[in-house]
């Protein structure tokens, strides 16, 4: 490749690349803003959502939690009895 051609290639890539990155992220900004507004309208209480999230999680990972609880309680028990020794 000739030097000037290479420089042109580089310049074109720079312009096009930065341009595309900005256009794409602008579209993303707009979409995200719209999406958040839409969700805010139909599900107006973001404050409620952590609670909801939690309840979802607690039902979904109930078993895992129980297991962890069992493991920990067994461990604590063991730890205590071992200290008594």
């Amino acid at each position, binding site marked *: *490749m000739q*030097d*000037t051609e*290479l*420089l042109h*290639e*580089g*310049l074109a*890539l*720079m312009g*096009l*690349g*930065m341009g*595309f*990155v*900005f256009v*794409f*992220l*602008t*579209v*993303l*900004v707009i*979409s*995200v*803003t719209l*999406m*958040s507004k839409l*969700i*805010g309208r139909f*599900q107006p209480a*973001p*404050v409620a*959502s*952590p609670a*909801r*999230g939690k309840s*979802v*999680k607690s039902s*979904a*990972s109930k078993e*895992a939690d129980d297991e962890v609880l069992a493991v920990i309680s067994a461990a604590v028990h063991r730890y205590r009895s071992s200290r008594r020794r």
Partner: protein
Amino acid sequence: MEKLITLWEGSGLYNLELGQAVMILVGLGLLYLAIYKKFEPLLLVPIGFGGILANIPEAGLAISALDQAIHVANPAVLQQMASTLGATLDPLASVEAWRETLVYLVNDGASPDQLRAARDVATNVGYSDGLLYVFYSLAITTGIAPLIIFMGVGAMTDFGPLLANPRTLFLGAAAQFGIFATVFGAVGMSAMGWMDFSINQAAAIGIIGGADGPTSIYVSSMLAPELLGAIAVAAYAYMALVPLIQPPIMRLLTTKKEREIAMTQLRPVSKLEKIVFPLLLLVLVALFLPDAAPLLGMFCFGNLMRECGVVERLTDTAQNALINIVTIVLGLAVGSKLMAESFLALETLGIMGLGIVAFGIGTSAGVLMAKLMNLVSRMPINPLIGAAGVSAVPMAARVANKVGLESNPHNFLLMHAMGPNVAGVIGSAVAAGVMIKYLG
């Protein structure tokens, strides 16, 4: 006695070339940086160690069975290989010359069919692919390893701060200027005759400025695999150097007053927004830049697993066992590219130099973009968080926070900086897609 000579002639010391010795020292140097300077040790320990393994003379850990046979097989095997490659070896030339002829044939002249046949000869007489070569073929040539790691990164990323303040995406966009300025720098150096980078190589080098290891490895494995070793080392080393590179630039480009700007607290983001975001991003990628689909697709997949809250088992594996296993394999595989002939070249110095420039320009662009946004928008933005747009998650965000605290000890910017920080990941993946689109 003859056996003793064989042992000696097969030893590393007898066969050690200067380049290999230097590369072993380079590997030890990387380990030093990783272990004592804490330079991204999760990657640099495997890469450095892999670099040493790749340069053990005669062991052939980083090369294919065919290359290994060309390098060490006896003359009869060499002639057999030459005949499958459709060539005859000059009976008057030395065995070393024969080996060189074969190397040339394999790299330039031979058809896939002939290569397969030559490879059959090599494996039939007992040569096999080196371990690191196998890792490279499985993990990097297929693209699996960087993509799986990107999935794990997605599973570890919280887009909450970004969703609370989507405008910070512009900061993540601006910081990608480091990438493209570096590409132009690299072709400039070639045009000046200082280096000899093709446009593909320049693009792969530029992506170092994205400050994202897996993205750099993915792009350079596609556009310039011969530079992968140097690019990966530069990418991870500079990411570790972010706390040194960024602060002076940040201070230079901002006034004390600007650095003291307090930002309004981020609004809470609902679970649903976090679930929808990766899908929205995926759909936009699908519509506008399919070439970024492997990278951003796996990233969004990891993030969706994290946020949807119903596949905790999978999220946990993606964040731990899977990403760790792949990191070990990827690191060793990248190390296999730290071979003397390709690494000990002037180009590597150029790459290291360009890489740091890339980080600097990206940082500047992010800061300046934040200042520009302050001109046109009411809601104030502390320009320091613009520097976090280069990604290097979460290091750059912490740097922004730290520099901010220096000016105002009550101004915690960390959460605000996480927005541009993760935006930078998306930005550089988009930039990667554009480059692959044109040059891939």
